[in-house]
Structure formats: C-alpha cells, structure tokens
C-alpha cells in the first residue's frame, strides 16, 4: 500500500505542479475570454482587418516554412548522406543561426542592405521578414530531415539502386520515407515564424503576433489582446492537429547514431560541394556578423564602450538566469521524458507540447493574467515568472532530446537490474542516468542558449528592475543610434557564440567520457 501511494505521489504531484504552473494559465486565458466579453460578443473584435492580418501572417509564415524546409532538406541531404570532409564543422556552423535570436539577424540585415544598396528601405517589408526568418529557421529543417535521412535503412536505398537511378531513388524512396520529418519541419517552422513578433515589429510589418504585442504592451487593450491571442491559439492548434502524432514524437535531433545503418555516398565534385556550403555559410552567418561589426565601427563616435556599459549588467543577469532556466528545463524535461518513455505516462509531455506551440506572446499574456495577484507576487514580481515562461517554451525540446536518449537504452538494461533486486531509484541513478549524460548535457546546452536569446515571452513577463540581454537590446533599439544598437547586438552575439564554443569544448570531454560503444 505504502509503495503504491509513494508511486502515485511521485507520479501525480509533479504533474499537478506542472499543470498549475503552465497549463492553468492557458486555461484561465480561455476562461477570461469566454466570461469577459461584456455582452459584446466573444468574437466582436473580428473584422475584415483581422482576417487580412491573419491572412498576411499565414502567407509570410507559409512562405518561410516552404523555403526553409526546402533549404534545410537540401543541406541535410548533403551533410548527412554524403561523405564530405569537415562535415561536422559545417553542421555546427549552419546550426548557429537557429541558436541566435532572429532579432539579431534583423538588425544585421538592415545594416547589410544599407551597406549594399545605399538604403535599407527595401528590407522594411514582408520580404525582409521572409528572408530573415528563412535564414534563421532553416537549420531546424536541416536537423530534422538530416536525422531522418540518416535513419533510413541501407537496404531500402540499395534495393532502390538495383532498379532505378540515384536521382529516382532519392525522389521515390528516400523522400517518401522522410515525409513525416518534412511535415514536422514545415509545421514547426510555420509555427515559429507565426509566433515571432520581434522581426516583423523591427521591420514595421503588421502581423497578427506583432499586433497582439502592440495591443497588450503599448495600447494596454487587454481584452482585445486576449481575444486575438485566443484566435491565434485556434489557428496554431488547427495547424498542429494535422500532424499531432508526428509532432508529439518529433525527435528534433538524435545525438547518438546507435542503431543507424545509413548509406553514405561519395561526392563526385567535392570542391563544388565545399564552395556551395561556404557560400551558404557566408550568406546566413558571416555576412550578418560582418555587417554588425561594420555598422558598429561606422559611427562618428566609437560606440563599443557605451554599448558594453549598457549591456554588461544585463548580460551577467542573463547568463545567471539562463543557467537556472536551463537547469529547470532539463530537470523537468528529464522527468517528462522518463515517465513518457518508461511509464507510458504522456501528460507531462503533452502539457509541455501545448506550451511549446503556443506563441510566446500569448504564453506571456496568459502568465501575466494568471500570476498578477498579490498572493503570487513572489512569482510575478521576480525572475521566477521568466523561468516558468522558459520552461513552457523549451521544456518540450529538452523532453524530446532526452526522450530520444532513453529510447536508445534497451529496456532490458533496467529489467536485468530489476531481476537481481536493484531498487527502482537505484536503477534510475545507477543504470539509466549515467547512460543519459550526453542527452542531458545536450538538452542543457540547447536550453541555455535558447533561454539566453529568448525575446518573445521574456519581453512580456520580465519584472521591473530586471535587465536581460535581448530585452535590453530590443528596447534600446527603438531610440538609440543605429551604430549603438548594432554594437549591442554584436556583443550579444559574441556572448552567445562564446557560450556555444565553451559548451562545445566541454561537450567533447563529456561525450568522450560518457560514450559507451
């Protein structure tokens, strides 16, 4: 009886806590919308302009999703299916845009257009948003499709090559086999693009998410912002329902190649392949960095010292909070993944999936409306509310990465321990956990980098007196000289890249120590 009670406590108390922290705020948002219309009708805010705005947002995001998925799939194919020198380095460098806030690229490309064409007015359009989002999100498609391509069994491809050409094998065998990965990539990028307000807001393009942000933060029209948030939620859920099953099991990426038996092809013209990949790197990574550096140095006043003075306290606070956020996200992700994979208990993962696909602006509004009570001020008025927002945004990613790691540990490892009398807690700590170190490390690093650059939800919920790097850069950009904004953005980028480099070095040691062939 005691054992059963203990099991139920372990199972349900964290679930209730997670639901209370993240699920209830979203439910409350819907409840407030349903009860707060004052007889004016729940959908009274919907008019021609609303539809035009949603249509425009969907058009931009769909274009981004198509372009980024295509670009990512091509890169994934080249880097995962061909034997190419420095393949790992290309993968790492092409992954970087995903880890850097799209807002940084927006600032950089604005500078780039000014430098290249003499004025930057042409980037202040839907095309600018599409370009920046495509370059920022294509690595996601590269990871997902590349991972799927590397899991195709050699036999399937070789059987195809026996009867048709390589080109037809790709089109008729490989692409149909990775259809779920292509769909997931498309959907995730569509949702990410639809959710981001920072780039459209920076380029002055009206999108639905940017409109919600404006209504809530600038015009204080809470009821309209809530209604619009619900509408956006409905759109996102409708999109998600299409492939909910695939999305809930989306691997993002697998850090181990155990069990893969994938065929790799020889590149006929390696020089051309390197040239294309280098050009892509220049376009998506080096040009923006170069532009930021150039713009930072172009002003009459050298702005670096001023930028550093402004951003230094924010960066220290950001690094500390991102560490705490990553720890929380990883711990909850580990628990959620473990109970899902080993106990077939899917609710924590479902709650994290739900908050993951909710646009950060909407999540921010939900959290503010839920926690803005005197009794909850210890959360609302402190950095805890930011940690909760980050948990909502990135918990699902950590859960999937660790879940992949758990899937690769045969159940028989734990069963063998169970049969010889090892207690469940010891089985977890002495058998499963040591084998999961690489996955946990990867989840932590990714969560850290994402928390460090998160703007959407942080912008909505950050409490007074708290200065965080992306928020500081975004807010100061509205009134400061361009060179100062660029300098601050460049420093933010440098801090992010430095963190990635340090983790990469540490990761090499971790993977070497905890890799069991």
């Amino acid at each position: 009886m005691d054992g059963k009670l203990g099991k139920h406590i372990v199972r349900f108390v964290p679930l209730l806590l997670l639901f209370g922290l993240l699920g209830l705020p979203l439910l409350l948002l819907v409840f407030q919308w349903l009860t707060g219309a004052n007889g004016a009708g729940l959908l009274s805010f919907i008019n021609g302009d609303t539809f035009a705005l949603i249509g425009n947002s969907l058009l931009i995001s769909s274009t981004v999703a198509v372009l980024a998925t295509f670009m990512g799939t091509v890169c994934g194919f080249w880097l995962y299916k061909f034997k190419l020198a420095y393949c790992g380095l290309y993968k790492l460098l092409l992954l970087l845009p995903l880890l850097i806030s799209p807002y940084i690229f927006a600032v950089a490309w604005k500078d780039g257009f000014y430098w290249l064409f003499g004025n930057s007015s042409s980037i202040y359009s839907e095309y600018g948003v599409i370009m920046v989002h495509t370059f920022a999100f294509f690595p996601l498609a590269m990871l997902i499709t590349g991972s799927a391509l590397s899991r195709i069994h050699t036999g399937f491809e070789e059987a195809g090559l026996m009867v048709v050409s390589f080109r037809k094998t790709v089109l008729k065998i490989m692409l149909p086999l990775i259809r779920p990965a292509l769909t997931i990539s498309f959907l995730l990028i569509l949702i990410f693009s639809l959710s981001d307000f920072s780039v459209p807001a920076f380029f002055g393009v009206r999108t639905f998410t940017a409109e919600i942000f404006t209504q809530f933060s600038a015009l204080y029209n809470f009821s309209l912002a809530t209604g619009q948030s619900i509408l956006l939620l409905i759109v996102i859920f409708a999109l998600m329902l299409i492939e909910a099953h695939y999305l809930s099991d989306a691997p993002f990426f697998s850090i181990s190649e155990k069990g893969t038996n994938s065929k790799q092809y020889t590149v006929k013209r390696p020089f051309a392949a390197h040239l294309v990949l280098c050009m892509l790197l220049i376009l998506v990574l080096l040009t923006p960095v170069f532009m930021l550096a150039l713009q930072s140095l172009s002003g009459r006043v050298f702005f670096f010292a001023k930028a550093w003075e402004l951003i230094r306290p924010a960066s220290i606070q950001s690094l500390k909070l991102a560490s705490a956020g990553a720890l929380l996200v990883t711990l909850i992700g580990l628990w959620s993944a473990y109970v899902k994979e080993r106990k077939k208990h899917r609710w924590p993962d479902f709650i994290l999936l739900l908050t993951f696909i909710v646009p950060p602006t909407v999540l921010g509004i939900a959290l503010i409306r839920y926690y803005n009570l005197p009794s909850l001020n210890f959360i609302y008025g402190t950095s805890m509310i930011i940690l909760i927002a980050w948990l909502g945004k990135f918990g699902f990613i950590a859960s999937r990465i660790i879940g992949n790691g758990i899937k690769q540990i045969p159940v028989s490892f734990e069963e063998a321990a169970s049969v010889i009398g090892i207690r469940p807690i010891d089985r977890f700590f002495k058998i499963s956990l040591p084998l999961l170190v690489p996955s946990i490390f990867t989840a932590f690093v990714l969560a850290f980098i994402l928390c460090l650059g998160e703007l959407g939800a942080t912008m909505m919920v950050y409490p007074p007196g708290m200065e965080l790097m992306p928020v500081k850069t975004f807010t100061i950009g509205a009134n400061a000289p361009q060179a100062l904004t660029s300098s601050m953005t460049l420093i933010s980028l440098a801090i992010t890249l430095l963190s990635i480099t340090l983790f990469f070095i540490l990761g090499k040691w971790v993977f070497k120590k905890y890799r069991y062939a």
Partner: protein
Amino acid sequence: MHKITFEHIAHYYGEKETLNDFSISFERGKTTCLLGPSGCGKTTLLRLIAGLEKPSNGVVKIEGTIVSRKKEIIVPPHKRKIGFIFQDLALWPHFNVYQNIAFGLKEKKQKNIKSKVAGLLDLFGIGDKARKYPHELSGGQKQMVAVARSLAVQPEILLMDEPLANIDTHLKENILQHLRTIQHERQFTLLYVTHDHREAMKIADYILVMDRGKIVAAGTKEEIRCSSIEFVKSFLNN
C-alpha cells in the same frame, strides 16, 4: 511441489494475443526447453515468470505462492530469486565486466564479493577480462559475462531467452557445459528458450513445444521425439 506453475494464463500485447489459457508446471531443479517458432509466446512466458509482464488473466505461482495474477504483480521481480539472461544480453555498457557481475551482489550487500566474482570469471575462463568494458569483448565473451552475472546472485530459477544464438557450436557447447555443471551443484530450475530443436534435445530434461500462444506438446525428450502431432513432427523435421 512444482517450482513454477501457470494456471489459465492469458496475455495480450495491446490487441494481440500472445498466450491463451495457458496452464503448465515446471519441475524443480530440471531443465525445460521452450521450443517453437518466432512469435509463439516463449519470451512472454519467461517474462511472466520473471515478473516483467502482468498476466491479462490467470495466476503464476512459484513454490505454491501466487506471484502474479490478473493484471497484478504480487511479488516483484527481485524477490523471486530469478536470474534472467536476455536475448540482447543487456550488459550495462558503462560498467566493466567486474562491475556488471558485482552490481547485484553489492546492492544486496553480500560479503566476499571480490572472491565470488573472481570465482565466476575463472569458471568461465574470462578472468583476464575483469576490467574490460562490454564493447571490448567478443560475442562469446559477452555471453559468458551475461551468464556469470545472472548466476552471481545465486538464483533458484534461471531463465535464458535464446542467449546463445549466433555463436559457434564449440563455444555454445562450452557455455552449456559450464551451465550444466553449476546447475548440478546448485540445483536451480532452468528454463531455456530456443527455436533450435537440436539444441533443445541436447540439454533438456523436458521440452515444451509452443505455437501461437498455446502448448502443442509437452514431455520428455523421447516423448517429444516420438510425438505423432503433425506440428511437432514438422517442426522437428525442419
């Protein structure tokens, strides 16, 4: 009293039926081979005995005590005094050979662990591999370690799920010889899953032939060899 008894056991994986109204007893200290084609329920039967699966219906008894019944595990796996050698061996990759074998002994806070492990390693001729990790061993050595690990905790029942598939006959003979010696000394009950009838004929006291979750035939080696049941004849001839 029989060591293990199944009474009207049924088992489902989702919608798929793996065992159907299955009743049988296994004698203490004897070797029983479970013989049958892939997917006939042999592994499920072992997992039910080990307490790694719950029966959908019926009762599992060990020494007359109910250990599992309909959708319920009454005695957890580690209290059943069982050794289990898995098909994939399940050697923990982050432990070396010594640690793999000693792990269960340490958790049970047994004395003289070093000498017990050393004795087993010597018995199987892998004394020099104590500090090696599983990925540094050959297939046969891994199998030796798996057997040694399961014997270390001195089980009263040893369950072997086709652990000696894919190794050469000489090595298989060697391992089985060691196993028989230890079984003779310790008198544990051995249940050995295989789809190779020649192997079964060599080591079994009793043979249980299964097909699609049901017992087709059960008896001594001679009884099975002379069986007039069409499925048994066909299986043995193939």
